[in-house]
């Protein structure tokens, strides 16, 4: 039996659920992970990633020495260097001086619009706050964004327009108190596994009824009262038809609509054409299912809506989200316990990174950058001369790369993200990356994006640093150091403070914006001064179970659910939405719709999970095809196929499964050797600028074993 040297309580680095982890450490090896059974988030339960998937921190591919590219890179001809022999090991001093030289040179020559940064939804609140502070206070740019643009931008835009608040309104664990809940465009048992458990319990033990609205027969369908298998991209007609039923059958919560919303009369007129029959024609969902779903949700005492990428990652992601918001307005299922609008956030800290102003439109606390008063407040806090901060909204994640050309963005700083796996239409992304004049990668691994960089700054993993993260239901929790930093790696906040001081000195700024923090707690105290959501939070108060924002003052107990009295916008706005088809419908040449997503065992671009034992249980990609399609197209299970869209082609094996819907194939985004995003469509939602990952047209042709990147490796098991 092993007696641990220490057991450290921390927060899981994977998804937005934010489970508590107890790391058991012996001789710097984390050998066992358990969880606090009394923890309000996960009650001691974990998923495979949280309990076993931490070993990437020990990977021998991890970079723990600062690196500079041997071959100088020129804009337009930038190349990828995965091999360590193409890099020179340097001291921290040299790496940071070099980074400072190049960033300041470009800034002085081309000005603030040449500078851009990707913050990181996996880094802590403090790390993200500092990174946006560097680019805003020192380089005077708002070209600050992160991967929220690629995941919930559609939801955020819709929520801001209708109620002026983008966070999940309720606590996920409240689902056991609901009597009906909708899951749409989300696959919680794989992507938010612990919320998935709570949802299963809600159905099996607490008698709640589940409605799944999703093209795929996800595991939660086994627990559902109703499954509405819609075609990808037909959310709006289905949601509007549900609204049509609710209105026509007199199921509207009049009291709520009159007291809490505006625009109802105009909105209702737009519902006329959205009969269940019309929705059936477009979506392929039986009209009776739509009617039943509308009645079930409207008649519930407490109805919750949970949604994910299937709603937001469309060229009409904002409209899809608005369709859902209207359903909550019509029924009054918001502002009470076990109700609400609940976009499940993907990353452990995507909520926090957004809160911290890692977005081109906002300072921390969702304060618009083009509001004079906000700018003045931050100028004061950061010792910036009056008028010094940029009042213009910056470029989004997707726009930053498309603006990478002479006269546009020249320098990009990427902390922990991997656009070369996660952007749509990767062949195009590659061209943009090549155009950059200077690229800084701050990460654990040389991933597909970092391979393009000029300088690599090795950061510590979550197990080697202190900080806070904010989970999907707004719970701010501690991340604690369990082991010493590997090699020379440093916590992101320390790297950023060091870099900022060098940049500030080089720019010759008369006042310091303040970078000499002695701990992350001090950084939180700073942003708490202007971001009232965090004002009442101190590290001491977070000690055991954290606090749910908003926490406006030092004795405030936190906020489990929002909007009890009113919305931040006052009244919730009905904003009519019309049906817009997906940008690339299937046709003769490309007869299938490809939809993308994730699997339980892997995480996003794969930097973490593919360097972990997790890769052993799910080692290679598959394309899921419905048996009906497999029959007419003559594909067998496990056969190599070439999947092509108008933008690219990849070769991988089939998995014939009823989990797919006929006419729709599914692929996960995690595998660099068959990157689904080579195929996806980079068409954007005009308002949210989120790409249409969830639907594009593809064709599938037989391929040879030899065409597979790794014919010897197969993912054998299918869970169900």
């Amino acid at each position, binding site marked *: *039996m*092993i007696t641990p040297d220490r057991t450290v309580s921390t927060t899981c680095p994977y998804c937005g659920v934010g489970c508590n982890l107890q790391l*058991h450490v*012996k*001789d*710097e*090896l*984390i*050998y*066992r*992970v*358990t*969880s606090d*059974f009394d923890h309000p988030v996960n*009650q*001691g*339960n*974990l*998923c*495979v990633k949280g*309990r*076993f998937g931490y*070993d990437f921190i*020990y*990977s021998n*591919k991890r970079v723990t020495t600062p690196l500079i590219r041997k071959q100088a890179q020129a804009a337009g001809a930038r190349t990828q260097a*995965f091999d360590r022999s193409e890099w020179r090991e340097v001291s921290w001093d040299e790496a940071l001086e070099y980074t400072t030289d190049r960033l300041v040179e470009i800034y002085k020559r081309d000005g603030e619009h040449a500078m851009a940064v990707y913050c990181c939804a996996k880094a802590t609140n403090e790390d993200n706050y500092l990174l946006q502070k560097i680019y805003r206070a020192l380089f005077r740019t708002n070209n600050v964004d992160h991967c929220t643009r690629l995941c919930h931008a559609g939801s955020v835009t819709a929520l801001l327009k209708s109620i002026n608040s983008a966070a999940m309104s309720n606590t996920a664990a409240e689902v056991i108190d609901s009597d009906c809940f909708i899951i749409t465009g989300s696959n919680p048992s794989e992507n938010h*596994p612990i919320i998935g*458990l709570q949802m*299963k*319990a809600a159905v*099996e*033990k607490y008698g709640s009824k589940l409605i799944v609205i999703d093209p795929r027969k996800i595991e939660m369908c086994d*627990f559902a009262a109703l499954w509405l298998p819609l075609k990808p991209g037909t959310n709006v007609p289905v949601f509007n038809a549900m609204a049509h039923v609710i209105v026509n059958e007199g199921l509207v919560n009049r009291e709520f609509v009159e007291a809490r919303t505006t625009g109802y009369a105009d909105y209702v007129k737009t519902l006329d054409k959205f009969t269940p029959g019309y929705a059936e024609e477009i979506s392929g969902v039986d009209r009776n299912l739509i009617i039943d779903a509308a009645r079930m949700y409207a008649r519930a005492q407490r109805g919750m809506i949970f949604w994910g990428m299937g709603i937001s990652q469309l060229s009409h992601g904002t409209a899809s989200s608005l369709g859902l918001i209207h359903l909550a307005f019509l029924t009054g299922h918001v502002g009470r316990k076990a109700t609400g609008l609940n976009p499940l956030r993907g990353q452990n800290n995507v909520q926090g990174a957004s809160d911290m102003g890692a977005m081109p439109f906002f300072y921390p606390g969702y304060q618009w950058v083009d509001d004079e008063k906000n700018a003045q407040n931050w100028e004061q806090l950061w010792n910036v001369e009056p008028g010094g901060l940029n009042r213009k909204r910056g470029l989004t994640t997707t726009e930053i790369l498309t603006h990478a050309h002479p006269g546009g963005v020249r320098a990009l700083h990427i902390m922990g993200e991997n656009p070369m796996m996660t952007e749509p239409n990767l062949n195009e992304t590659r061209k943009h990356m090549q155009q950059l004049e200077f690229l800084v990668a701050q990460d654990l691994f040389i991933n*597909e994006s970092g391979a393009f960089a000029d300088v690599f700054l090795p950061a510590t993993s979550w197990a080697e640093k202190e900080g806070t993260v904010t989970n999907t239901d707004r719970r701010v929790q501690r991340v604690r150091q369990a082991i010493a930093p590997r090699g020379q790696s440093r916590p992101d906040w320390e790297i950023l403070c060091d870099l900022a001081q060098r940049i500030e000195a080089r720019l010759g700024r008369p006042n310091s914006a303040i970078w000499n923090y002695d701990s992350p707690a001090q950084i939180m105290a700073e942003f708490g001064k202007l971001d009232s959501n965090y004002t009442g939070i101190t590290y001491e108060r977070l000690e055991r179970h954290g606090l749910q924002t908003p926490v406006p003052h030092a004795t405030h107990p936190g906020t489990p659910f929002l909007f009890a009295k009113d919305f931040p916008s006052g009244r919730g706005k009905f904003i009519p939405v019309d049906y817009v088809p997906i940008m690339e419908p299937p046709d003769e040449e490309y007869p299938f719709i490809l939809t993308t997503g994730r699997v*339980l*065992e892997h995480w996003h671009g*794969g930097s973490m999970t*593919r*360097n*972990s*034992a997790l*890769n*052993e*249980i799910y*080692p290679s990609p598959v394309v899921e095809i419905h048996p009906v399609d497999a029959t007419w197209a003559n594909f067998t299970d496990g056969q190599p196929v070439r999947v092509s869209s108008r933008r690219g082609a990849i070769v991988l094996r089939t998995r014939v499964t009823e989990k797919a819907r006929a006419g729709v194939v599914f692929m996960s985004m995690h595998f*660099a*050797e068959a990157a689904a995003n080579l195929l996806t469509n980079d068409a954007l939602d005009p308002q949210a600028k989120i790409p249409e990952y969830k639907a594009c047209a593809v064709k599938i042709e037989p391929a040879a074993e030899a065409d597979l*990147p*790794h014919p010897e*490796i197969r993912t*054998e*098991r299918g*869970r*169900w």
Partner: protein
Amino acid sequence: MAATVTLQIDGQSITVAAGTTLLNAAAMAGATVPTICYHEHCTANALCRLCVVEVEGARVLAPACVASVAEGMRVHTRNERVERSRRTILEMLHSASDVSEAPEIQQQLDDYHANRERFGGGERREAEVIDDNPMYIRDYSKCILCWRCVQVCAADAQFTYAINFSGRGFETSISTFFEQSLTDSSCVFCGQCVGVCPTGALKPKREWLLEQGQAPADILDATRGPGKKRRERK
């Protein structure tokens, strides 16, 4: 039914909510009732019988983890009869299973002055360590059939139903269907079972290798397959 019930525990009168288990009522009265299979976050099934208490007038000892309070009950949490029963259970467990990695059971063996050799020489529940996946191992010679793992795999947490009882009587064991490997079962490797196992029968593979004296670097290699390259480069 009355909302509260008054009863005597070890001579002390206490009033508790109706439906309270004797285990919880005893805790409120300040009496410690030992448990093995019971886990606060699992359904109680009264399998191990270590938590038995004597209820006056009842023919047999009552398992405190599932028996509810009743008006006027007189409960003895630790008298000679209870002690003898608990001691025998501990002695039998010790004789059949390897409980060397169950600190709570070791403590209880001491507390009840159990004779570790009383059933010495009896048949033991021996099993090879099953190492069929990179996440955790199963060493059923340490299993005492507390059923916690089965329950968290099922409706106490995961709703995955990958494991259950197999066999009867002394041959009972925890198994996947048809003893297939975990990677062929419906297991999702959440490890809820590992989290509740009281005896080290279920253990993270890295912990198991560390116990065998392997170096951290070798342990990490052993849980990762060879030559699985992350990417194909042109």
